[in-house]
Structures are given as C-alpha cells and as structure tokens.
C-alpha cells in the first residue's frame, strides 16, 4: 500500500497526480512527492522497521512506490561508523562516518536515488531509462537498469575519460557522447527527455529520484538509535541529498519514529564549484552560476537544480557551509584513509575538510554528535590523489637490499614498526 497522495509544486503549491512530471506547468517550480503522514504514523514503528531486511526499502512507507520494489534489494543500509581514531585526531568525541563508499552495487550514494527512480520507471511502464552523467550517476543507472531488464542510454559530454565510459558500457548501456560544452549537453538532454518519452532519472523522474536520498537520513537516525545527530555535514552538487536528508529528519518526527532533537545541516562544496556557499556567505537567496574547476568532479556543478533548497534547508536548521580547496580535499581523503581505513572520493574529502573548518570556527563543538557524509568511493577516482600519495620504495629481489632499506629507514614508523 502506498501512502503517496500526489505531487505538489514546491513553489506555488499546485497539486498534480502521480505521473512522470517534474516541473509545475504554471510557475516552472519543481514538483515534490506528498504523503499522508497521519496514515503513515499509524502504520510504522521502530520495532517493525528493525525487523525488515537491511536495505533502503525498510522505510517503504516514506518512499514513492506502489508495490514492494524489485530494484535495489541490496542498496542502502550502509555502515554508520563510529570513528574513534579520526575523532581523537580532530577532537570530536562522538564522530561518525556514514559510509556510502560501500553502497551496493556501484559504491556511491547514487544507488539510493537510482533504486527508487528505476522502481518508479518500471511502475510507469518505461522501457528505456537514461541520464546525463560523467560518473557515479551513469554507473548506478546502467547497473540498476541491467538488473531491472531495462534498456539504458547514457549521455556524456565530449572529453570524458575512457574509464568512465567503461563504467557504463560494461553493464550493457549505450553511451552517447555529445559534442559541445556542458550547456549544450544539458539542453539537448532536456529536449530528448521531452521528445522520446524515456525515463530520465534526474529529469522527468526527478521527484521520485530525489526521494531516494531521504534514506541516507533515515538510516543515520536509525543507526544512532532513533535519534538525530547534532550536526551532519553533506556535500552539495545538484542539491539533491542535503534538502532530502533535512526532509527525512522532519518526516521521522512527523510520523513519530523519533520524538525530539534538532540537527544542524551543514553544506560542503569544493572551492572550485561553490555557487551555493557563495550565496550562503553573502546572505543571498539567488544562486549565481559558476564555471566549475576542481578535482572533485562528482560535485562539480555550476548551477545546481536544487541549490535554492539547499540554502533554505541549511538556514532553517541553523547550519552553515564552507568550501574546501583541492589540496584540503586531498589531505582529508588521506586523513580518513590513514585513520579509519575508508577511501573516499573527493566529495568525501570535501565533507571531511569542511567538518574540520566548522570545528575550527566553533560552529561544531567537540562534545557534540557529528556525522560526516561520505557519498562515494575513492577507488573510482584514483587519478585525483595519484600524485599525492607516498611513493613506494623499489628494490631488487635480494634480502641484503631489504636489509639496507630497513637500516636506512630504521626509526621511521613506516617500516621499523614491523620489526
């Protein structure tokens, strides 16, 4: 049974039936899924949810699907790690990492949004799913489409690395490279979505797609014992995850799964793609588009679709936001890997680097409960840190060579610790 009541314009409030629509016909505002929270309140309890399988569908009543979903049976419910060693290094007693580097099957938070979007695509009867992407989204759509038995077409701008193309074609997706700049690709994909009747997960299925991001927030609260952290730091690219985590926290209260607590929601952007942070720091409501230039490719979006809603969610929660430079991002990736054995992509380095800044600014207190969101896996973006790692020693295959190296390094923690 679905508790969805329809789609509602986030700007003018106009109602629409459940359909593959994403924009209000009147004011062009984005549409959002609306629910019957009073009915959900009667249907859910922490105990009932805890009995369910460990995937994102354990919050089914708060997701926009009609039937028990077939897509993403292993997506979501990723670990919430209490990171003692990193916490000690930073001076935060209750520090957690929400670790979507191990999301199934494509190692990023996109497995959440795409599971919901493709489930909905099947319900609507679409035969082809699609997206425009240079990385995590393409991989997630291609993999979930393969498992759902749907055709998949992925659009990419010219100049994308060969590895990114393999990440989609391996799943049987058809990749189309579009000559032109990002503006041209955006425009063409909007036109194709309009004309061909395909399920573009982040265009005509966007209201459903974005709902999948709430599961990140639901899980954080459940894994903390049905309570909110005092702070959560989230990356912002297109602006999907941050407002939806804030919505998730509101919904948990609305349906009685948690009773109290306030969480400050903080935004992290790379310095080379920070239109939302610039607006936040200026106190502006409008977001001035920028041309991205950062190693954090997965969050390099110059004019985020939902940037305005990121600003609103941050302000409503009394949160804040900061940027991280490329070098700060790399240092944070290394710090997380070195202290906790989690290898994040640059988006994760960004959230950790921004957490460190918020702590230095005393916006976060070391005694508070803090969750840092890690939304993608560093194994996919080795090139970003390739020049920043400690280089290995190279020796001949003779013991005396190693003995000499050991002597040379004796006293250094790297090798002497093993003696």
């Amino acid at each position, binding site marked *: 049974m679905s508790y969805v009541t329809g789609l509602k314009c986030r700007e003018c409030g106009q109602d629409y039936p459940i359909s593959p629509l994403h924009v209000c016909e009147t004011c062009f505002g984005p549409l959002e899924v609306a629910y019957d929270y009073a009915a959900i309140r009667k249907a859910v309890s922490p105990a009932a949810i805890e009995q369910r399988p460990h995937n994102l569908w354990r919050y089914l009543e708060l997701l926009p699907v009609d039937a028990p979903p077939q897509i993403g049976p292993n997506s979501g419910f990723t670990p919430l790690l209490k990171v003692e060693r990193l916490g000690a290094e930073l001076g935060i007693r209750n520090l957690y990492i929400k670790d979507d580097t191990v999301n199934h099957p494509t190692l990023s938070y996109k497995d959440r949004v795409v599971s919901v979007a493709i489930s909905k695509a099947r319900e609507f009867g679409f035969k082809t799913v699609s997206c*425009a992407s*240079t990385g995590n989204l393409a991989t997630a759509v291609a993999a979930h489409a393969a498992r759902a038995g749907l055709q998949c077409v992925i659009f990419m701008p010219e100049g994308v690395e060969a590895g990114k193309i393999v990440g989609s074609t391996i799943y049987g997706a058809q990749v189309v490279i579009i000559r032109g700049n990002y503006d041209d690709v955006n425009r063409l994909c909007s036109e194709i979505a309009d004309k061909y009747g395909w399920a573009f997960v982040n265009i005509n299925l966007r209201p459903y797609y974005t709902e999948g991001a709430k599961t990140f927030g639901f899980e954080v609260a459940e894994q903390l014992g049905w309570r909110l952290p005092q702070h959560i730091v989230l990356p912002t690219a297109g602006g999907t995850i941050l407002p939806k985590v804030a919505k998730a926290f509101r919904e948990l209260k609305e349906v009685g799964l948690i009773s109290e607590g306030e969480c400050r929601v903080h935004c992290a952007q790379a310095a080379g793609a920070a239109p939302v942070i610039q607006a936040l720091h200026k106190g502006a409501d409008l977001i001035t588009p920028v041309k991205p230039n950062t190693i954090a490719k997965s969050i390099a979006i110059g004019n985020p679709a939902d940037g305005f809603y990121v600003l609103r969610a941050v302000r409503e929660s009394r949160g804040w936001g900061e940027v991280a430079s490329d070098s700060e991002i790399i240092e944070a990736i290394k710090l997380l890997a070195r202290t906790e054995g989690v290898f994040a992509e640059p988006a994760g380095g960004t959230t950790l680097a921004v957490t460190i800044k918020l702590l230095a600014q005393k916006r976060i207190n070391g005694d508070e409960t803090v969750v840092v969101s890690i939304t993608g896996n560093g194994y996919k973006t080795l090139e970003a840190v390739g020049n920043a790692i400690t280089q290995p020693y190279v020796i001949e295959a003779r013991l005396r060579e190693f003995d000499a190296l050991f002597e040379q390094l004796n006293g250094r923690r790297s090798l002497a610790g093993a003696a």
Partner: protein
Amino acid sequence: MERTRERYYLSYPKVLIKEPILYQLVKKFDLMFNIRGASVSEDMGLVAVEFEGTQEQIERALAWLRQIGVTVEPIEKNIIE
C-alpha cells in the same frame, strides 16, 4: 516552419539587470515569450521564461543571449551529475 516551445532560466549578471533584454530579443528574433517567474537581487536577476518560435529562431536567440552575458539554461538547470 514548425513552431516549438522551450522553457529556460535566464540568469542576468548585475551589469545587465537594467537592460530591456527580453524586449530586444523580441525585436531581433520575433520570438514570443511568457514569463512564469522572476526575481531580482542586488547581484543578479533570474527569469523563468517560455519561448515560442521556430527551432532556428530559438537557437539564434539563445546564442545572442549567451553572447551578451546572460546564462541560459533549461529549467532543469545542470542535469549532468
């Protein structure tokens, strides 16, 4: 020529906020437009607009807007993720 309707967000930088850009657009390219939303701040202007015309008229109009410094994007904004 087949006529089409397309929906865009136009972001104006500060220097263009006082310019009658949509008026000039109609004069130059004979396009119809319908504004669905607009806001102006100290730093920029944002207009949600629907254009109606031939594909060629719209293409030429968008190229001109970009040339004078207006950011033109589909109402979905950046969808490459």
